[in-house]
């Protein structure tokens, strides 16, 4: 079974500063990797995903993430954050078909609360 560890439960950052949210995963097979954002009392919205190919993935709202297979990491970065980026961020994995046999529900980490300070 796969698992996801988000090392920081909370990350405070000043507005316009860069930020990195860390994510490590564990799996005996190859995985697809995702970052989702959740604003208060809302569902989750996809920021970006890694399926294959280039290890640097660009997403919405200026976010990017880099897949590192040797370190089993998929850290999320943004060069300059805004107040509107305040939210909960979740890293998630799933097993590609046919390895997973079609069962491809996401396994999420516990989330990182990004707090933007003015």
């Amino acid at each position, binding site marked *: 079974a796969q698992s*996801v560890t988000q090392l920081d439960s909370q990350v405070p950052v000043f507005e316009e500063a860069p930020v990195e949210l860390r994510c490590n995963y564990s799996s005996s097979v190859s995985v*697809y990797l995702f970052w*989702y954002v959740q604003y208060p*009392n*809302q*569902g*989750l*919205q*996809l920021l970006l*995903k890694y*399926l294959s190919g280039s290890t640097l993935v660009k997403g919405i709202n200026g976010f990017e993430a880099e897949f590192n297979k040797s370190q089993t990491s998929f850290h999320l970065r943004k060069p300059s954050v805004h107040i509107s980026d305040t939210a909960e961020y*979740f890293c*998630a994995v*799933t097993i*590609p*078909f046919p390895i*997973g046999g*079609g*069962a*491809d*529900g*996401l*396994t*999420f*980490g*516990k*989330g990182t609360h990004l707090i933007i300070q003015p």
Partner: protein
Amino acid sequence: EAEVAQSPRYKITEKSQAVAFWCDPISGHATLYWYRQILGQGPELLVQFQDESVVDDSQLPKDRFSAERLKGVDSTLKIQPAELGDSAMYLCASSLVGGRETQYFGPGTRLLVL
């Protein structure tokens, strides 16, 4: 833009009562997921449907939870009887065919069991 619809948005119930949540996925999405998100945690998969068939319900507490997607479109998740520990956000998501496809989440149903 098409969205996943869920109702109700909020539900308060007493222990041992029955509750039901409804989800209408994005039109044309064959795969539907129900997740439970306890406060301060990431979502956990409860059940996955491909059309009207259950693909994965290994994490569904089957003694009290049931889920159906009779016509392969909308879905209902039921809890009977509800317990205090069931208080959580229940999220529905859908995707075209699963796997590499993006899962689109609804706004969720927040359940409080008293």
